């Protein structure tokens, strides 16, 4: 562990690691969880809200979910101010593509272009990387509904189900056993609630601490629906009843 090599973002350590990038991922490991599941007829994004002071004025529709374009949304985990910069950049990238080609930008290209920007902060300039991981959910006419994840290193990959933020390892192992190919949105939403309930075990899961959205296609349009609080409360209480019943067995 050579501490001499970790203050410069653009230097490798003797073991071949980029410490600043790893430290950025540490920051995200302490941030509110984001979970994504790609179902056959839609995508679920579930996010844990960390900022729940009752004195906060609710001026934004969502804290962790952002619309990027008509066909893509994302959720963020990590430093919110860094996330705002990246979301703004993503929106501009998508619009520039639309202006040039008069066609919506394919999902992977949008993710890829932002990741190229994130990568430059790990190679030049001496600036620190962005302390944000993102989950992207979107649709394009080439590959249909897609779910992607990107991290501070600028790596990205496509997923059927994934999780970022606090307790993501626990969520991923649960997803590995419970995710079934061809799952529908109707089953994916309770599954997302189940996993959020499990990993937020210490801090009890309430509707105020959860943001849940579904991305679907209907009438040739992509819709992002943010599940209202009453419906969330109902889903959470159903989950709690099932969990109590399972415990009794």
């Amino acid at each position, binding site marked *: 562990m050579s501490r001499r090599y970790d203050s410069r973002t653009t230097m490798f350590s003797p073991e071949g690691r980029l410490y600043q990038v790893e430290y950025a991922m540490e920051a995200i490991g302490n941030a509110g969880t984001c979970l994504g599941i790609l179902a056959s007829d839609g995508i679920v994004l579930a996010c844990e809200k960390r900022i729940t002071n009752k004195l906060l004025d609710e001026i*934004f*529709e969502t804290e962790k979910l952002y*619309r*990027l*374009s*008509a066909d893509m949304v994302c959720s963020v985990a990590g430093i919110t101010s860094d996330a705002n910069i990246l979301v*703004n950049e993503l*929106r*501009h990238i998508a*619009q*520039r593509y*639309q*202006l040039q080609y*008069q066609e919506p930008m394919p999902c992977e290209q949008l993710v890829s272009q932002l990741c190229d920007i994130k990568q430059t902060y790990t190679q030049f300039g001496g600036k620190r990387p962005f302390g944000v991981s993102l989950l992207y959910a979107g649709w394009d006419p080439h590959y249909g509904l897609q779910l992607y994840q990107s991290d501070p290193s600028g790596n990205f990959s496509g997923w059927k189900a994934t999780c970022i933020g606090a307790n993501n390892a626990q969520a991923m192992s649960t997803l590995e056993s419970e995710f079934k190919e061809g799952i529908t949105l109707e089953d994916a939403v309770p599954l997302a609630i189940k996993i959020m309930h499990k990993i937020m075990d210490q801090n009890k899961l309430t509707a105020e601490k959860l943001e849940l959205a579904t991305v679907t296609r209907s009438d040739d349009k992509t819709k992002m629906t943010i599940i209202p609080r009453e419906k969330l409360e109902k889903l959470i209480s159903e989950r709690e009843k099932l969990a109590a019943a399972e415990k009794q067995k």
Partner: protein
Amino acid sequence: MSIDEYNGCAIVAMVGKDCVALATDTRFGVQRSTITTDFQRVFQMGPRLFVAMSGLVTDAYTVSARLKYRLNLYELRENRPVSPSVFVSMVSNLLYERRFGPYFSTPVIAGLDPTSGKPFIAGFDCIGDPSIGSDFITDGTAGEQLMGMCETFWRPDLNK
């Protein structure tokens, strides 16, 4: 033939009772030749906001594409549909940016305010001077002729 008359067009927007109407001709010509007769000049910018572009067609399409770019970013950032009066400022700003090499196209906006539902029409010159209309706006190569027709036939509170 001046550049404004190269492709030819006729646009009229009118205010009615809780409604607006926007009409354009559908001829696309190159000077005196007619190329098509099913040409689209109206572009939808929102659920209740339309813009019709007159003048040189290439500039009409470019301005409307650039306008949509700015509009999309506005709506993503503000999380609400744009109101016609703000849209007027957006159009005006876009056109004035090219003050000394202007787009040879002038937009005519017709829409309803997203919150109040109030009818709204506006016209511009090619460098962005807005004229917000309370009755009708006409534009294009047949602009004067349309103005005469509107002056004769328009009355307030015409319904659909």
